[in-house]
């Protein structure tokens, strides 16, 4: 394995170094990490849940192996046995070269999908430890350039893709024109503050139109915020909590400024986990509002009878559960309830819900250009699943997943369109009586 050496990560030039990385690793170690590493029996089962290993066949992608730097720091500095071994000169130490070698393993070949965490017989939450490892990697200067760039852009421009409000403004006007409805902006005291991801804004503008229609249909009050519309979190992806916290604070500030009770994360999966689960811990306090994924909100509306649909899609539809939404956030049944509203022929993929397979793009892999070949390799797992049930279209609810599915299916010459679940719902809404 030839180490990927970031050409610009020159310790003389950059502010990052091994010591800083080790300090970050140390700061991540807690009881669960110690329990996990104490328990690993090298059974190799985690490899059987990793699309990167399964589709490449290269054992270096075995999930638990990706944690070796973190494990070494734990063993040498947090265990009596490691200290004894150290005194005897038997303890292996983490080196900069090792971290350089591990950069590919921790970033390029891990979408942090968490499937390994679901199958480990001793219960190791490997995904969580990859997340922790990235803290050390960033501090040691071994984060991929693509992710570093996204993080810088997110901090400096408000969007990892460098998207400006004016671009969104154009989309808003487009939606208002197309739907005849108003997209509320900066309205204080409404029910929901809706956050978006740059990718949705650029690639899937129909999403904004769909929620505009649905909320209008259901009589929900909502708003966008000019102060902050981007909810994706490049800090989470690169694995740095300082940057991640900064980005979360922006969302919190916007919500507080408008005095909303609820914040809707964008469809983008990691954005949801970022503000829903990590956010309060990143900023070190509870939110004065609640956070929902749009799917959760739609399902609540459905349950309250505030969404009335007519007609169903007649073709054979299947569903891709985004890892961040399903396995890592417990939103699993909601999307199925919604599918039942609009799909005549809904067929589940062979392994779905909490045991679904990652599309291969999460965890920052899609923002990491050099990981493209691995990303496509990992997609083969999803492809095989799709081939097993032969749907005419795929439905999902995460912009990153949707992009990956579309690209992957196209790459493999499979003519299966991908649609967003929110849009499907919007398509089948019963037209409101025109106000007389």
């Amino acid at each position, binding site marked *: 394995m030839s180490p990927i050496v970031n050409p610009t990560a020159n310790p003389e030039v950059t502010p990052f170094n091994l010591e800083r990385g080790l300090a970050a690793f140390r700061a991540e170690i807690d009881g*669960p990490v110690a329990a996990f590493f104490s328990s690993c029996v090298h059974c*190799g*089962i985690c490899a059987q849940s990793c699309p990167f290993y399964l589709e490449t066949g290269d*054992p270096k992608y075995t999930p638990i192996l990706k944690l070796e730097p973190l494990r070494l720091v734990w063993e040498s500095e947090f265990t009596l046995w490691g200290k004894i071994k150290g005194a005897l000169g038997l303890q292996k130490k983490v080196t900069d070269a090792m971290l350089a070698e591990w950069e590919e393993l921790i970033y390029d070949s891990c979408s942090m999908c968490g499937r390994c*965490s*679901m*199958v480990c017989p001793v219960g190791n939450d490997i995904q969580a430890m990859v997340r922790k490892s990235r803290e050390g990697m960033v501090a040691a200067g071994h984060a991929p350039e693509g992710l570093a760039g996204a993080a810088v852009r997110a901090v400096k421009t408000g969007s990892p893709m460098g998207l400006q409000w004016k671009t969104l403004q154009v989309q808003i006007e487009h939606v208002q024109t197309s739907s005849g409805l108003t997209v509320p902006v900066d309205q204080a005291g409404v029910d929901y503050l809706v956050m978006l991801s740059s990718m949705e804004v650029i690639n899937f503008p129909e999403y904004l139109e769909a929620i505009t229609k649905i909320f209008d249909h259901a009589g929900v009050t909502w708003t966008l915020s000019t102060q902050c519309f981007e909810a994706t979190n490049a800090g989470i992806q690169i694995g740095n909590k300082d940057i991640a916290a900064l980005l979360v604070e922006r969302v919190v500030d916007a919500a507080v400024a408008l005095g909303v009770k609820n914040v809707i994360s964008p469809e983008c999966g990691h954005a949801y986990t970022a503000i829903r689960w990590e956010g309060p811990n990143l900023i070190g306090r509870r939110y004065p509002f609640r956070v929902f994924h749009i799917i959760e909100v739609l399902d609540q509306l459905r349950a309250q009878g505030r969404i009335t649909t007519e007609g169903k899609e007649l073709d054979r539809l299947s569903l891709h559960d985004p890892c961040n939404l399903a*396995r890592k*956030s417990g939103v699993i049944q909601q999307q199925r309830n919604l599918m039942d509203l609009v799909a005549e022929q809904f067929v589940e993929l062979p392994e779905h819900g909490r045991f679904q397979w990652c599309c291969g793009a999460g965890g920052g892999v899609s923002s990491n250009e050099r990981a493209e070949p691995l990303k496509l390799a990992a997609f083969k797992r999803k492809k095989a699943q799709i081939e097993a049930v032969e749907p005419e279209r795929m439905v999902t609810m995460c912009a990153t997943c949707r992009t990956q599915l579309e690209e992957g299916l196209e790459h493999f010459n499979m003519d299966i369109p991908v649609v967003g679940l929110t849009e499907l719902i919007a398509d089948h809404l019963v037209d409101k009586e025109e106000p007389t």
Partner: protein
Amino acid sequence: MTALADPMGFLLFTKGPLFNIAIAIFALGLAARLAEILLLGRRPNFAEPRAGEWLPGLRTVVTRTLPDPGTFKRAPFNVLTGLIWHLGFLVALLLFIPHIELIKGLFGISWPGLPNPFVDLVTAVTLVALAATLVHRLTHPVKQRLSTIEDYLVWAVTFLVVLTGYLAYNRLINPYPLALGLHILTAELFLIILPFTKLTHIFTAFIARWYNGASFGRRGVQS
């Protein structure tokens, strides 16, 4: 004193002083390991939970014993051999009457056991399954990559514990004090290395599973 010339002396050494040493190292080592883990603790979690932690944690402690169907389909040999020898080991350890008496002698608690021939059969199966896991470790690319000297050492000690127990019960090593002494010796080796090797998982796996289950459970996922 050699075990062959004085098998009874050897047995009494393993039952007496060596056992005391082994149990002391084991108790100190294990307690240190557990304290090392538990006292590190977790940081406070401010995210609004979807569900509690305790029950899902306990649930995972139980459910991780069996694999999900997909994993079983992808790695049936690995899963099956692992399950079989773990189960066999536990049956032999906890349901063989002499072992129950040992536990009663040490802790004053006991429970019913299984007929000896059944345990004997289970032990034989365990040995076969353990041998199979070694073959798997030596041949499977992932396990080759993962395996360290420690893995082979731990395998050898575990295998020897079961093997000597099997040989002693079936009186295939003579005289019996030598056979029993060897079994106790290997069991003591097992106890001594337990806190310092992956064998710790016998205890920490439950903590790990609980942490995992709690973490996922908090987010409304059955892990």
